[in-house]
């Protein structure tokens, strides 16, 4: 079916048209963060990086725009069923030249539109050939254009490992997409991809990073390899895995592959295919949101996937966030005394985030804290009040009873980061409060 691959020559196409096609083709990749590495400019070029990353704009979908997110080309020899660029789709095709990519990056960067470049690509001829194109563009950008800002590139499974190694010395972050949470799902929807091929470069990058850290300890000026770490993403809701399976996969990626981030991408139906589900109310945004909340609990709150879900309850509660849900199942651990409990214990209280917990531990050195102090510190008292005492007293007389607290938590509306109009889960308007700042960090 080679004739289905309609290759339109991109020569003669304007830069504007190419950018339109190749940004449109790249938009389903979730990762956009520019965080993980702090590097000052050396005064001889352009650019620096900031550890926390910088968002430069927010699109109409509320997602952050941090990097110039484009494909090198959207031509592809693969036929993954969920992908807009699969070879059996009749879509306009285009390719950049390395110089076009460099010019766009530099000119956008000097105007403070972007924080750097995110370069991915469809597979042109072969994985190795494609990686060489990417390498050429990134090499030019780093050496000829002296660009010292953030660069995130995709490692393409199946490409020559030596290329991955060389590219890693130029990029800040690399990522290999897991695509789907399980090998079975991958087999069904991405017939040209194999789980093993995906994990190979992921392992190689992990080992490269570890080895580089050791080198840097010995030689301070050794070139750094993927200093901002690696990330991956998986599509949620295209295949029938439950949340427990997904969280276990994520936990393994964090623990065994030292990933910096795992992104979850609510499945957006772009192709019609009998293998794909046709989600009624649009992408499963609430499910994606719960997974991110749980992901935060794994990375910053000291939780394990096993604590949040198990074989008997394999999916997250749609009415309650994972932390409140956990607390309600462990009422025997509460209430905790704010003026005495250790940091890790305070961190597990619903309504208290990382920042509030840190502030509590600092502020209580100067004397006992009262409820009004907690409010000033940023604790969401209407959620926390069921789980804490200040100087031995609860804020109001409260029954330590699961049903009672659940009812009260649910009757406070949760601030969800998406509208109720036109979105899924319209019926669920009763939610508890959720901290905006935490959501901001997700993106």
């Amino acid at each position, binding site marked *: 079916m080679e004739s289905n691959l309609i290759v339109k020559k991109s020569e003669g196409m304007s*830069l*504007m048209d190419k*950018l*339109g096609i190749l*940004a*449109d083709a*790249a*938009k*389903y990749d979730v990762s956009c963060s520019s965080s993980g590495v702090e590097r*000052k*400019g050396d*005064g*001889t*070029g*352009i*650019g*620096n990086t*900031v550890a926390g990353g*910088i*968002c*430069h*704009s*927010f*699109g*109409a*979908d*509320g*997602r*952050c*725009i941090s990097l*110039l*997110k484009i494909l090198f080309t959207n031509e592809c020899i693969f036929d993954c069923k969920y992908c807009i660029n699969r070879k059996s789709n009749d879509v306009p095709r285009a390719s950049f030249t390395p110089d076009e990519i460099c010019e*766009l990056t530099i*000119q*956008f960067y*000097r*105007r*403070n*539109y972007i924080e750097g470049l995110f370069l991915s690509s469809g597979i042109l001829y072969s994985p190795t050939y494609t990686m060489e194109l990417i390498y050429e563009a990134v090499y030019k950008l780093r050496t000829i254009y002296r660009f010292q*800002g953030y660069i995130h590139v995709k490692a393409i499974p199946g490409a020559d490992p030596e290329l991955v190694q060389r590219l890693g010395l130029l990029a800040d972050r690399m990522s290999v997409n897991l695509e789907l949470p399980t090998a079975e799902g991958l087999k069904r929807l991405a017939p040209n991809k194999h789980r093993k091929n995906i994990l190979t470069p992921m392992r190689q990058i992990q080992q490269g990073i570890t080895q580089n850290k050791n080198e840097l300890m010995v030689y301070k000026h050794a070139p750094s390899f993927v200093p901002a770490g690696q990330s991956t993403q998986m599509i949620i809701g295209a295949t029938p895995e439950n949340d427990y399976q997904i969280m276990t996969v994520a936990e393994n990626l964090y623990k065994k592959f030292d990933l910096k981030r795992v992104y979850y991408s*609510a499945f*957006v139906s772009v192709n019609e295919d009998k293998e794909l589900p046709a989600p009624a109310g*649009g*992408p499963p*945004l609430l499910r994606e949101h719960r997974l991110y909340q749980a992901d935060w609990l794994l990375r910053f709150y000291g939780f394990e996937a096993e604590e949040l879900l198990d074989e008997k309850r394999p999916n997250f509660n749609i009415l309650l966030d994972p932390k409140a849900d956990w607390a309600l199942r462990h009422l025997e651990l509460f209430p905790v005394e704010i003026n005495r409990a250790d940091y890790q214990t305070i961190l597990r209280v619903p309504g208290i985030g990382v920042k509030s917990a840190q*502030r509590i531990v*600092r*502020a209580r*050195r*100067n*004397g006992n*804290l*009262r409820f009004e*102090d907690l409010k*000033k*510190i940023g604790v969401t008292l209407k959620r926390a009040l069921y789980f804490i005492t200040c100087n031995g007293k609860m804020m109001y007389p409260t029954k330590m009873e699961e049903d009672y607290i659940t009812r009260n938590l649910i009757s406070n509306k949760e601030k969800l*980061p*998406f*509208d109720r109009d036109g979105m899924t889960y319209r019926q669920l308007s009763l939610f508890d409060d959720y901290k905006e700042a935490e959501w901001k960090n997700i*993106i």
Partner: protein
Amino acid sequence: MEEYYLICEDSLEGIFTGIYDAYLMRKSHEQIHICLGEEENLRLFAVYEQRITDEQKAAKVARTIEREFGVETYLAICRALASPEADKGEAVYKTVVAGFRMGNRKALMGNLADPYVHRVFELARFTANEAHFHVEFLRFQELENGILYSAIGPKNNLITFIVPHFADRLPLENFVIHDEIRNIYALHPAGKDWYLVYGKGQAEELLHRFSEGEKAYSELFCKFFHTIPIKERTNGALQRNMLPLRYRKYMTEFQSL
């Protein structure tokens, strides 16, 4: 008990001078207050004294704060004093007083149960947040002569907190950041240190003649900006939360709307 109100100039130096003078009075700190400009309602049984800004006194106070309470606190106080709020002087003064009463002075800003420390914390956080928004959302336009120009309209006087970031990032560019509210220009000549210029008359007409490339690249970015969102996830409320409307006035991608 008599109350003393020291009227200080609305600047970092002015307020630091006030703090110096307040300590010089050798009276209980509860009796002394710092205010900016004339009070609207004068109080009975209160003495109002105008204080003249003194660079040396201010420098001494700055050094003392940094030495006794650490850099973190010093920066928090500087950020708080960039605020337009009238009570900032009093909050900073009483925070310093609270600091000298603490055992571990370096932990001053952690003492959030103190109302003045909390106020300084709040003001400093607002300035820091707004400064961060400017690092994110500030836009440069290329003028005919190749200079990058940016106009901003911040609520806090934050220009000195953001220029170092851009100076490090764009060392070989000539750029200008213009605070339209306060009429302050930060100028960065390529390869040199940046500096501030106050007041009008900066060849206004030059600032509206853009280079050839400017139109092309701003249009390319608008194309990118409108292409990258996922239609199925459209969410104006989230976009508004993350990117407050007041910044859009200065942003390239919102000009055509």
